[in-house]
């Protein structure tokens, strides 16, 4: 097809919306995100196609492989439309039954339905499952609904209408004005107002400018951007087209993590289709405006998510940050004015342009507008992607949507903001998600990773974990970060090994203050946060490690004796059966005993013992 026009968009929408919008369309939506692929959704889909054909139901049902549905821990997921019946953990074995019972006879297959962890009831409809019911999908509006490899299905959901409006009817100032009104703040972590950033770059002199998309998603435990790219890649492309028009750029790059092969493949397919439709390339919509996008793959360096480092990496150099100013809006990639935005930020833009900045800003708090996507994981029942209005409390996210903590264990803390963030304890769970409110309790909004930890997590060990990460990923350019984080890690190692001294706590705090002040980039400036927030809320755990040489959560190997308390031991023998080193002897009706000579301290016995008898 040559140049797409508004009429074309409308026609494609009409032709395709029969499936995605109609109340009566019969579709089988099988999740094709990274998570569901891993649990076997591809063979399930193949089997489904075969069964449907065997039954002669081909004409009645569309089988669609969607992007990430968001409820990753329940995969493979199959949703049957129009009713919206949600089947979880569907295996090849279940397919025959689902086709026979549900599609032919109209009866729901009870055993594949979601079971509420609290009420223990089965819930048939996706919309009734608390995990989905409390969400407000805006960025994720297409997830699990459309085939991400079909540009027509994106167009059927109003895709590229925002770009059309921006390119044919809005001067750059007006685009920027709407983004400012929306109150949109960068979703990559720092929360800088997007409209203001675009304004700077728009005013910079230069005939060559760049729009970059940060798809590096380096925070461990965060998978929002991956899911957006896998489920709705065109939304990101459309956002970049609008950004390009706003600052008058003609070339864009998406810097994507190499660990996300599926996202990269879908993005490339989307770019190819957009080019075919004339939505990328010369003279888009006949507006005279031209823009194209290429993908750049990272090569495994966390610091490359930082804006100046990312630009150096695209230039083919070692990805090290440089001091600002000059800001990228003045001198960025190849020394040209450049804007960099996060995947989620950009995926919001088409809706903001289409519906207006005020529509977007109607939801949220005073300083944090719209919705935010969180990746909820760790010790929580409902693991997955959650999009809620800003201002929602952490408690709602973890307990109402996330379904609380598995088993009978208690909540201990929630980690927000990855290696730059902090741990928030029980008493602050009513904090609303809002850039300023979260900062007040010692964490940061960050990019959206929410990691829930139960009482079996050692907070000193978590601080050590993050410092180990930072220390490994520090690029080495500035001394405070390179040497300071190494020293912090040494102290934390010492404490976890039982060699900590009371003065170590002061040393940690003092050193943290210096690193925060003196480091060159955000990596170092925020690196002490996990240490400071755990000292602030869990000082007693540090003190137990230091003064009593005891790890209350029983996670620090050096502080464990690897002995069994005969009083607590229920003589079940499970530890003996599971020990890979054969180090535990047990006879019926006798407590088990660990042979320390043979023990490799692998911790298996600790994880299998249900009676807390090993210490």
């Amino acid at each position: 097809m040559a140049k797409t026009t508004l009429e074309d968009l409308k026609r494609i929408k009409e032709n395709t919306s029969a499936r995605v919008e109609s109340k009566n369309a019969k579709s089988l939506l099988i999740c094709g995100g990274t998570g569901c692929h891993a649990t076997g959704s591809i063979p399930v889909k193949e089997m489904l196609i075969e069964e449907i054909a065997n039954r002669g139901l081909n004409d009645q049902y569309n089988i669609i492989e969607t992007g990430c549905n968001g409820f990753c821990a329940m995969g493979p997921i199959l949703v049957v439309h129009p009713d919206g019946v949600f089947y979880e953990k569907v295996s090849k074995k279940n397919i025959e039954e689902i086709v026979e019972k549900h599609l032919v006879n109209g009866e729901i297959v009870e055993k594949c339905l979601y079971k509420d962890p609290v009420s223990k009831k089965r819930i048939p409809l996706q919309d009734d499952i608390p995990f989905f019911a409390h969400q407000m999908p805006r960025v994720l509006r297409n997830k699990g609904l459309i085939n991400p490899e079909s540009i027509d299905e994106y167009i059927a959901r109003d895709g590229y209408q925002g770009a059309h409006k921006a390119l044919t009817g809005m001067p750059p100032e007006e685009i920027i004005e709407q983004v400012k009104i929306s109150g949109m703040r960068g979703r990559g972590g720092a929360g800088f107002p997007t409209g203001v950033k675009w304004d700077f770059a728009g005013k910079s002199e230069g005939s060559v400018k760049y729009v970059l998309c940060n798809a590096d998603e380096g925070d461990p435990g965060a998978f929002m951007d991956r899911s957006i790219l896998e489920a709705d890649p065109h939304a990101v492309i459309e956002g970049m087209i609008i950004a390009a028009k706003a600052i008058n750029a003609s070339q864009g790059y998406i810097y994507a993590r190499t660990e996300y092969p599926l996202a990269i493949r879908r993005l490339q397919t989307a770019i190819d289709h957009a080019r075919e439709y004339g939505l990328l390339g010369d003279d888009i919509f006949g507006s005279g405006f031209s823009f194209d996008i290429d993908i750049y793959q990272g090569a495994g360096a966390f610091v490359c998510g930082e804006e100046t480092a990312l630009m150096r990496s695209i230039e083919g150099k070692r990805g090290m940050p440089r001091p600002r100013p000059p800001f990228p809006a003045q001198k960025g990639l190849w020394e040209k004015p450049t804007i960099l935005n996060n995947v989620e930020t950009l995926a919001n833009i088409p809706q903001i342009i289409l519906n207006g900045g005020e529509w977007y800003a109607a939801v949220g708090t005073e300083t944090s507008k719209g919705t935010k996507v969180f990746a909820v994981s760790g010790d929580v029942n409902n693991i997955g992607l959650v999009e809620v209005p800003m201002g929602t409390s952490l408690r709602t996210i973890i307990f109402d949507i996330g379904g609380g903590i598995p088993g009978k264990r208690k909540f201990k803390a929630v980690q927000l903001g990855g290696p730059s963030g902090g741990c928030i304890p029980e008493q602050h769970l009513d904090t609303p998600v809002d850039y300023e409110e979260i900062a007040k309790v010692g964490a940061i909004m960050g990019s959206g990773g929410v990691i829930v930890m139960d009482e079996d997590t050692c907070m000193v060990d978590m601080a050590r974990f993050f410092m180990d990460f930072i220390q490994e990923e520090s690029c080495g350019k500035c001394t405070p970060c390179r040497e300071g984080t190494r020293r912090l890690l040494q102290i934390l190692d010492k404490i976890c090994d039982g060699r900590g001294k009371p003065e170590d706590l002061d040393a940690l705090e003092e050193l943290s203050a210096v690193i925060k002040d003196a480091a060159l980039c955000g990596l170092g400036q925020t690196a002490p946060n996990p240490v400071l927030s755990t000292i602030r809320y869990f000082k007693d755990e540090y003190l137990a490690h230091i003064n009593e040489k005891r790890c209350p959560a029983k996670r620090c190997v050096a502080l464990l004796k690897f002995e069994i308390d005969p009083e607590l031991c229920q003589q079940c023998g499970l530890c003996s059966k599971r020990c890979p080193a054969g180090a535990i002897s047990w006879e019926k009706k006798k407590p088990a005993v660990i042979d320390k000579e043979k023990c490799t301290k692998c911790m298996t016995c600790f994880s299998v013992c249900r009676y807390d008898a090993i210490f």
Partner: protein
Amino acid sequence: MVSVLHPQHPDITNDMWNEIDEVIDGRRSQPGSVIAVLRECQAIVGYLPVELIDHIATGLNLSKSRVFGVVSFYSLFSLKPKGRHTVKCCIGTACYVKGIKETLSRIQNEYKLEEGGTTEDRRFSLMSVRCLGACGLAPVMVIDDDVHGDVKPDKVDAILEQYA
């Protein structure tokens, strides 16, 4: 292309050298392409021997130190040969909280493997990575291109045995 003699290397066949030259030729005029070239060449050979790095530097008209600097900066690149199968254990936050440490130490003990090392029979290489974006399945391990979720220490043997 500029004709360059191919250095001898036991791990790089003539066919590989030809493929490598195609990669370099295709990307020579693209600014900043060195990372992409290194990635594609590593995919051909399995790792980046010094001779190959030199060859790439010459081909892209960059100094050897510049290319070497890039190789040493990014964790994707390896200067050492890898085993037939690469085991990547995720030590991202979600996987850590869910106990990847125990899984990792089980692999290290049973297969006598260090992180970053390769078994003597070159069957497995062990690497740790930070978050594969599959946190919903934590703890996660990727062998070659297969993602394995919920890998408790007990399951390690059965999974690794599938890879000869």
